[in-house]
């Protein structure tokens, strides 16, 4: 593709390098772009990356591994979209994704990204784990296969296969059972939602995944979907309609909030802790849902909710988006965004950092270990906090 064929050719040159894309909404730090935080080089900020993309499409620079790594280091967190002063600010992450699409078409992508995509093509998950093991997390729980219940509980790849995230999937399942919600899961028939595939620029694979999923959902008569992961929530809610797949999609924190309000969950046992909440990018900036998770936490007796320096639309991304929880372009340093975020969480004095996303969960858990802060702070999913608050009161 020459620059002339690039979808955003009329605007990509207009970035005048103000640098706002690196700042959070409260201007308190300069490292709110996760890739920039990691490398502290202009190439890794959105502005710098766009300049390099333009130079590449214009044949001023050649494709190299390094260029591909820079282009793929963006975690698609949308901090830049939030901060950029230009009229086209809504498109800037899409501009990076369009460049990735060009690399995909040429076949020139980093090896880890190739692995990620090929694993999804073959086994329906980026890890390349056997399809026949996807539904194993349900073992021994009494959760049924989806056969027309009110909700389809859609778990996603990370929740189905990652050791720590599987616990989250199970705990949410327990909570939903306890609340008497009518739901079922797809087990081994569940396939990747494709959100990361789309952010990595493999549009045709994303379309194929979306269309297959939509057909499966329709064949099963699915109308309402509750998603564990904000990534799945984002893809099914915002992207599936363009392939004729319209469903009522909820992120699980929205459902829990409604269940608590409606008195269907007895959380009176409470949870005594100072908790800080980490906004996941695909729930927060991508879908503007900042309140439901906080409403759930605030409803639990004993929870003292404190905010980090950067929260809501200014939250620092954990660095797990855009496939980075697997490709790990932003890892390996104390400047890795997840580690910065954990230090920020500790600074609030909280003993718990609450997550609402299995990707954030795995990134932050690893960061706690890398920082050696296991004694100071624990990472808990909101579903796990709610589950503890539902436990029958012990006789003292």
């Amino acid at each position: 593709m020459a620059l002339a064929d690039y979808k955003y050719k009329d605007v990509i040159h207009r970035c005048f390098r103000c640098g706002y894309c690196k700042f959070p909404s409260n201007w308190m730090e300069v490292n709110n772009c996760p890739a920039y935080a990691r490398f502290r080089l202009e190439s890794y900020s959105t502005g710098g990356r766009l300049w390099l993309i333009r130079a590449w499409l214009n044949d001023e620079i050649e494709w190299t591994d390094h260029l591909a790594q820079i282009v793929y280091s963006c975690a698609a967190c949308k901090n830049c979209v939030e901060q950029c002063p230009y009229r086209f600010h809504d498109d800037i992450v899409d501009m990076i994704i369009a460049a990735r699409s060009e690399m995909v078409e040429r076949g020139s992508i980093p090896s880890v990204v190739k692995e990620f995509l090929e694993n999804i093509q073959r086994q329906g998950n980026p890890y390349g784990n056997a399809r026949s093991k996807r539904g194993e997390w349900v073992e021994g729980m009494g959760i049924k296969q989806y056969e027309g219940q009110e909700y389809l509980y859609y778990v996603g790849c990370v929740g189905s296969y990652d050791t720590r995230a599987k616990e989250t999937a199970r705990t949410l399942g327990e909570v939903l059972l306890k609340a008497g919600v009518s739901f079922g899961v797809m087990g081994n028939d569940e396939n990747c939602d494709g959100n990361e595939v789309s952010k990595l620029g493999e549009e045709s694979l994303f379309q194929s995944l979306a269309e297959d999923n939509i057909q499966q959902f329709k064949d099963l008569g699915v109308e309402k979907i509750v998603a564990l992961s904000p990534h799945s929530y984002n893809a099914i809610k915002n992207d599936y309609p363009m392939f004729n797949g319209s469903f009522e999609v909820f992120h699980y924190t929205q459902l829990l909030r409604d269940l608590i309000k409606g008195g269907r969950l007895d959380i009176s046992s409470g949870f005594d802790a100072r908790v800080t909440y980490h906004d996941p990018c695909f729930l927060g900036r991508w879908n503007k849902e900042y309140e439901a998770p906080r409403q759930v936490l605030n409803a639990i007796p004993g929870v003292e909710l404190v905010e980090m320096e950067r929260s809501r639309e200014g939250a620092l991304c954990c660095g797990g988006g855009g496939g980075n929880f697997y490709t790990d372009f932003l890892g390996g340093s104390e400047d890795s965004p997840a580690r910065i975020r954990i230090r920020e969480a500790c600074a609030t004095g909280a003993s718990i950092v609450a997550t609402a996303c299995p990707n954030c969960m795995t990134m932050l858990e690893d960061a706690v270990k890398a920082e050696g802060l296991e004694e100071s702070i624990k990472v808990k999913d909101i579903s796990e906090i709610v589950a503890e608050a539902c436990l029958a009161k012990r006789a003292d």
Partner: protein
Amino acid sequence: MDIVVAIKQVPDTSEAVDVVEIDASGRDINKEALVSKINDWDEYALEEAVQLKQKLGGTVTAVTVGASEWDDILRRALAMGADRAIRIDEDAASMDSNTVAKILTAVIIHLPYDLVIFGAQSEDFGSGQLGCMVAEMLDIPHATLVVSLQMDEGEVRVSRELEGGALELYTLKLPALLTIQTGINRPRYVSFASIKKAREKELKVISLNELGLSRDALTPLVILEKLELTPTGKKAELISGSAEETAGKLAMILNDSGVI
């Protein structure tokens, strides 16, 4: 510059260690639960062929002996940049290398070729024989385990990989046959869209009869009698020393066993 690449399809067993079991015949694994993919070595072979074509012009033809499911790898080859593909419609699963070699030779002998390229071995049976056999049957020189190659007037210069990182350098007169070692290049990613687009390219299916061969007349020289899984043993080794020493010893054990 005309290149013929022979490829095969294998079951993907990389993440399915505990799903692998011997099938009812006792001479193959149960493939129902397994996904299929192109043989790893063949992917490198294809990439090398396509890169040569892109540099020097010419054609790349992908060839395989297999049942209809094997069209997948041919489409993949076309998507990577091969110009045409040929499948000899026979289930190669129960054939010995000699039989497959005879069939491939019967096809290749009618194609224009400067280079015939094979993967060094296959992921499933790993015999590593096919390329050498076809070279002998075609009566052309060959080199195996090629890790780099360079074309010149009427000849190809190759490096062969030996133990311990040593390399042998050879010059072969064309036409020649090469078997390719992994790591020679970085195979390109094949997008879903490009596989769909590859349907526009020619994929020819031919039968043994059309080659003047018959399955009955192709007597195998090697017969596989039995396939067994390695028995899982219980072996525990206690490593002693300080934390650093034990970590070091463990790292060496893991490295030597090929785990890391």
